[in-house]
């Protein structure tokens, strides 16, 4: 299956892109997506603990199972205000 991924804040600089898509096995979790992304974008490695993930407009836990066509957002801690 494929999921769409967008990056925010300095994750766009680390990856060199604002959006990509990732092919994953059925039943893959957010954690597996992050592992796949870290393989493609080595500068993302090491920051996993402070990496936040959303599916659509909701925060997603690392064990959340992804589905075909999910719109996933990957970003560092937020800093509004």
């Amino acid at each position: 299956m494929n999921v769409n991924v967008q990056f925010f804040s300095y994750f766009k600089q680390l990856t060199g892109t604002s959006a990509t898509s990732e092919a994953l096995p059925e039943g893959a979790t957010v954690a597996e997506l992050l592992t796949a992304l870290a393989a493609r974008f080595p500068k993302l490695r090491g920051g996993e603990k402070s990496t936040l993930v959303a599916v659509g407009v909701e925060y997603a836990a690392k064990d959340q199972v992804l589905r075909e066509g999910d719109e996933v957002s990957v970003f560092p801690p937020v800093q509004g205000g």
Partner: protein
Amino acid sequence: MIRTLTISPDPIDEAALVAKRRMSQGMGAAVYFAGVVREMEGERALKGIDYEAFRAMAEHQFHLIFAAMKQRWPVESVRVVHRIGFVQVNEASLWVEVIAPHRGEAFAACQFLIEEMKAKVTIWKRGIEETAA
């Protein structure tokens, strides 16, 4: 509870916002917070901050926070304005108004909103240095 949220690159006209306040005759307290961009961030002199938002999620997360406020306090109205894009030093990036019957509720709800926002609302900042082009 009335909820008014504006995420916009426009400067925040605080005086105009205050002039538009509406509060019913049972309300006794209005608390405001203006967050203003500071000149120094760590050791760097800034000319401003660039704010980036994942807007759809930011709006959704703000509304979740508003719903949590409504659960906890008898707030009649909350208004939030957050600027995005470049905000110059000494200008407001965030403006909040909370109206409640009593002072303690209004202060608590306003501080809760800001703290939750800083944890959950998908806005990021990037300091723009004084020496940058």
